[in-house]
């Protein structure tokens, strides 16, 4: 029997005991992908660290009706680590490998970099999130928390979590995709500051139930520290410091709440490049380029599903035009070019 399978009953008992032992249990309910998700935190520090990115999706509803229930705790609740933790850490320490388990309705992932363990039972609609010390959460977990649980939730509901930013103007949504350093986050942040709708900076959800649509998951913006030169306001908004982390981040819910929307019809995929041109230009590309760009980075960052995710993405993107967006150098010109592009004739 696989080692994890033999440990699973003990792990579930551990989480059950942790719920009972959480004197300060806090529950928040989200409307995520149009359905209720209830997240219970064992302590204030976990709630503070992990809820801000979801704050724009909070809903005041009956938590009993939630389709997905997540429990978040650290080792302090029971004053001991999860069963099998030492073996898990030792096993993954070599080469810092992620460990995964996928069998039937149960999926688990341990990330040695963040020391976060995520577990889901898709049949019962329960998820669990654990790390030894809440105070050790890395910045990227605070900016985009519970990514694997969100990925599994999307799979459960027929949606896809993708590695892309998304903005909108006049009810037309556009995905901004491309490798790091190609202007994706800068453009998304610039758009949010210029009156555009904002759906996400790094990860958004795609849905095809009623036509291609993009849905918001996180209201955070992650940025390279060099981006402050181009958008000076980002430096003052940042909740962390250059000396502490390799990227800065902040929450638009706190700084530009008016820009946040939960969903928009998806009208275009923009692959951004920094060309330092006089004017921002849009050039139509084959759809394959959009699928390549989105699928590879999404599948490698949300591992485990592979083929089904690729197929779902292809189905959503098949009729969505893809453009190379070569960015100009002037922020106002870029914003105006994006407005003109999104209000132009639909293809």
């Amino acid at each position, binding site marked *: 029997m696989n080692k994890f399978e033999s440990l699973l009953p003990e792990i579930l008992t551990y989480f059950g005991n942790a719920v009972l032992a959480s004197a300060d249990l806090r529950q928040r309910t989200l409307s995520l992908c149009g359905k209720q998700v209830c997240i219970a935190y064992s302590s204030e520090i976990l709630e503070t660290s992990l809820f801000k990115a979801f704050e724009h999706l909070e809903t005041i509803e009956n938590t009993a009706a939630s389709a997905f229930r997540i429990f978040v705790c650290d080792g302090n609740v029971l004053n001991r680590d999860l069963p099998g933790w030492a073996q898990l850490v030792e096993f993954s320490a070599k080469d810092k490998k*992620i460990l995964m388990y996928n069998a039937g309705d149960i999926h688990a992932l341990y990330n040695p970099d963040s020391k976060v363990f995520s577990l889901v039972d898709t049949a019962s609609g329960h998820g669990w999130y654990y790390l030894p010390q809440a105070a050790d959460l890395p910045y990227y977990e605070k900016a985009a928390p519970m990514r694997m649980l969100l990925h599994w939730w999307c799979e459960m509901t027929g949606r896809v979590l993708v590695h892309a930013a998304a903005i909108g103007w006049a009810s037309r949504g556009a995905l901004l995709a491309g490798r790091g350093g190609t202007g994706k986050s800068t453009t998304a942040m610039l758009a949010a500051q210029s009156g555009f709708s904002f759906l996400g900076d790094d990860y958004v959800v795609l849905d095809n139930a009623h036509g291609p649509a993009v849905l918001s998951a996180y209201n955070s913006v992650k940025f390279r520290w060099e981006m402050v030169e181009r958008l000076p306001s980002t430096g003052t908004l940042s909740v962390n410091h250059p000396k502490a982390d390799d990227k800065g981040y902040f929450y638009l819910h706190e700084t530009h709440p008016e820009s946040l929307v939960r969903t928009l019809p998806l009208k275009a995929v923009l692959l951004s490049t920094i060309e330092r041109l006089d004017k921002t230009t849009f050039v139509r590309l084959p759809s394959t380029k959009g699928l390549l760009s989105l*699928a590879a980075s999404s599948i490698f960052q949300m591992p485990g599903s592979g083929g089904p995710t690729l197929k779902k993405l292809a189905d959503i993107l098949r009729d969505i035009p893809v453009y190379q967006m070569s960015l100009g150098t002037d922020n106002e010109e870029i914003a105006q070019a994006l407005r003109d592009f999104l209000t132009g004739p639909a293809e």
Partner: protein
Amino acid sequence: MMEKYYEINAPAVISEPMEEELVVINLDSGCYYSLNKTATLLWNQLEQGCSINQAARQMALFYGSDEASVIADFTSFIERLMEEQLIKAGNGDPKDWPLSKERQSEPYLKPSFEKYSDMQEMLLLDPIHEVSEVGWPHQEKK
């Protein structure tokens, strides 16, 4: 001559058609590819259990091109697919005639792919890493 058969290196290799091309991702290596139309047709033929010679014969008829040159193109292209570990040796079992027998008016192009290997760079920026779906704990395949 001995017929050579191949199969897709699943589950590590996944693919999806888009327009007339094929997007292929190697989950083990982190590399991903776009195959041109001829390579996409060949990929389908291999999936259907065709040998190189069978595939080339069909393709030559399909495009009205010279069978010997198509065999040469396919042989060297399949070597590249093998080097990329996108396909592996398999057993021939042709299930269907994968190509239309109607002659194409467009010209035959050599099979080719574009390879992208930038994921490693991105993974270093946002920590993520080798994975496997086999179970946990287990050793990664070398």
